[in-house]
């Protein structure tokens, strides 16, 4: 019964697609694995850039003028040259100089934090899309604490604020964890709702006396005191956060793949029923996941506060909530993969900022590129079909969500 293909189909249809745990496949040699693991992301990036180029080309005013006059070749020529120029500046602004590298690093840090946060929770089968709220609460806690402990030497001050920022995000994140653990509330909805609650709550807090900068009518906090700020490389914006976040990535890797906690978490993520059977407390695992994931997102907010955006304003979290998902998927939910994914997105961002000021083409094109990349990363068939890649790409798609009922 269980070995027949129709059973397998019924299994799949019932929402239990066979899952892959990449870390445990050690039967192949390292270069082979590396090549296989890189093929899909590289092709995805390539396709994303291609789609971006098409949109840039089509949005060139000359393109349509030429086309109207029947000059097809010229039309495509202008489109291509505009796109080429855009990508030239994109690349140059991301990697063209030491300053550019520094900016790319600055952009990478928060993306890496939130990407780790999302990847960690997805591994545990917890579809947490609440990084935005956790990011905000990390920053709010940090700004309060940074100024509460003003006057301390940085060497003590910074760690305290970082830890408290972690806790701020962890507390906010654990709400969704507790709700799922206790009542089974679907985390996609609760984390989404908690994002909105966080936004409004922060908007309100920002005009209360506790947070509002004295003498200012608009919602903005005081600046974080200098002693709490992360030291930067002289002459550059690149800061200590790079090392902190890389250390976090390694710790997360270690937890996931070398400890019983990671085993427990991945078992819950792959098959919660089997985890229960095996004596793992699924409820506690969910809470633990959200404490750590929320904490990491909180750290993202905290490092932002202690480096580039020294005070919290209503739009402080930007699009980091959604970026978290992109980075996690692009990095195949693997901490080391997430490092590369965050770096890629960070360089796209720093590049796009440079591109916009040099060519006045809007920054937003990179969002389109990101969307295409995720689509290709998550479809086991799409890349194979388009690029005729053999088996290599078919490493299976991770199942992220299990519908509302799960």
């Amino acid at each position: 019964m269980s070995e027949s293909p129709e059973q397998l189909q019924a299994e799949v249809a019932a929402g239990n697609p066979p899952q892959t745990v990449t870390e445990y496949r050690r039967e192949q040699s390292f270069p082979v694995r590396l090549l296989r693991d890189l093929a899909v992301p590289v092709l995805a990036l390539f396709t994303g850039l291609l789609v971006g180029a098409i949109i840039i080309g089509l949005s060139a005013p000359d393109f349509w003028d030429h086309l109207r006059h029947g000059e097809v070749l010229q039309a495509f020529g202008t489109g291509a040259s505009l796109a080429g120029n855009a990508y030239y500046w994109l690349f140059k602004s991301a990697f063209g100089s030491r300053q550019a590298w520094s900016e790319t690093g600055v952009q990478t840090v928060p993306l890496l934090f939130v990407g780790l946060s999302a990847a960690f929770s997805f591994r545990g089968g917890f579809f947490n899309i609440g990084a935005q709220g956790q990011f905000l609460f990390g920053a709010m806690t940090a700004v309060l604490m940074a100024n509460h402990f003003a006057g301390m030497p940085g060497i003590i001050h910074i760690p305290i604020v970082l830890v408290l920022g972690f806790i701020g995000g962890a507390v906010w994140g654990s709400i969704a964890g507790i709700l799922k653990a206790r009542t089974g509330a679907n985390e996609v909805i609760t984390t989404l709702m908690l994002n909105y609650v966080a936004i409004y709550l922060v908007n309100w807090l920002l005009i209360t006396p506790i947070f509002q900068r004295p003498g200012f009518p608009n919602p903005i906090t005081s600046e974080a005191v200098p002693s709490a700020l992360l030291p930067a490389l002289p002459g550059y914006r690149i800061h200590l956060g790079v090392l902190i976040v890389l250390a976090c990535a390694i710790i997360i890797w270690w937890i996931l793949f070398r400890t019983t906690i990671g085993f427990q978490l991945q078992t819950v993520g792959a098959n919660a029923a089997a985890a229960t059977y095996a004596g793992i407390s699924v409820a506690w695992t969910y809470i633990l996941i959200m404490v750590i994931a929320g904490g990491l997102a909180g750290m993202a907010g905290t490092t932002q506060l202690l480096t580039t955006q020294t005070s919290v304003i209503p739009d402080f979290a930007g699009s980091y909530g959604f970026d978290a998902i992109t980075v996690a998927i692009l990095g195949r939910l693997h901490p080391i993969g997430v490092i590369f994914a965050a770096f890629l997105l960070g360089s796209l961002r720093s590049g796009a900022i440079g591109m916009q000021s040099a060519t006045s083409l809007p920054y937003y094109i990179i969002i389109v590129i990101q969307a295409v990349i995720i689509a290709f990363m998550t479809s086991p068939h799409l890349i194979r079909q388009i690029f005729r890649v053999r088996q290599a790409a078919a490493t299976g798609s991770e199942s992220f969500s299990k519908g509302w009922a799960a």
Partner: protein
Amino acid sequence: MTAPAVAVQRISAPIPWRRYAIGVLYLALAIFVFIVCGLHTLPRTDTTITFNGNNYGALPGLMVPTGVFNTLLAVVLAFIGGAQLANLGRAAWLLGLALFIFVVAFMVWAARGNTLDVVNVAESSLLSSVPIAIGALSGVVCERAGVINIAIEGQMLTAAFISTLMGGLTGNVLVALASGILAGALLGWLLALLSLKYAVDQIIAGFVIDVFATGFTSYLQVSVLEVHPEVNASGQIPNVGLGGLSNVPVAGPLVFGNNAYVYAMVVLVFSIHIALYYTRWGLRARSVGEHPIAAATVGINPIRIRYFNVILGGALAGLAGTFFTLGATGRFDSTMTSGQGFIALVAVILGGWNPIGAFLAALLFGFAVSLQTILGIFNVNIDPNILSMIPYLVTILAVAGIVGRTRPPAADGQPYVQE
């Protein structure tokens, strides 16, 4: 042989903490209403309630002594709390009722010494709920067939953009409307393609479309609409004024003089409800959402039904998106849908995957949106941000099963794999 005669103890049911907690919450609410909205205003403050809408002064207002009125409401709330504790009546109904009474008390209190126009409140709530309700219908149509459409937001945004572009280029509102709906349908098809053919997780596929739509429309807004501002004019669908009928008191402005989208919304809600439960399409679609393999064994093609419903859902979301331009501002702004597509999705869940339920949930959200404007008029000392949180908190309570759990279609979000 022996059949062991076991004396079975009758065990009393476990204590329903959840029910008690909600009951106590209602009682607390009653006390709050009594003290803050009632007692506080007892020394002779009046609220004037009118039902005129835009026909100012058509009917004389109703003078209500704020304090006394709210004290009465507090008593009613206390009764509801009692009913909840004693388990009389269905929890969901009691919650709706309690919420409604609390809102009335709050509004009457907010408008103390002032005039509260019920028709105005209702009208602006209806209008604010349009994109949420039509978007929620999109969600219902998709999820009933087993596909979660988290792309409603992106479909709405793209439709808003395309309708503006086409409206601006052709100057024809109907072309703008049609192209907006078409754009939504196209993204619906994309969602179907990604999730049904290419086996992308449904939520991820929807998310991809949302991200894509945000980037795509923002990019073109800056690179095209800002460069050619004359194109950023979708035109607007004129209000439907059913002649002199709109001057009839109370019902006039509410029923006969409205934004065309309001009518479309009401018609769609009921026709989709009827189609889902009383037609062949509805029966088959729901069977696919509940048990696609069973549907396949009786010769229904689940994939085809899902394609159809997801494309239809996309078209509905597209229609909802055109509301932002053709039904409201007449121009496109970057990320102008501001997350209402996600709220629509929540309305689907809150409404129990039922068109009418989703519509009621959308009304709740619409009311919350319009409340901020209304309170602004009364100069109420409550930060609008606090009020804005309420619908989201209610949603969290709802999905946590605190007000009774609703059941999604059994195969919602599950891939169906053909041999």
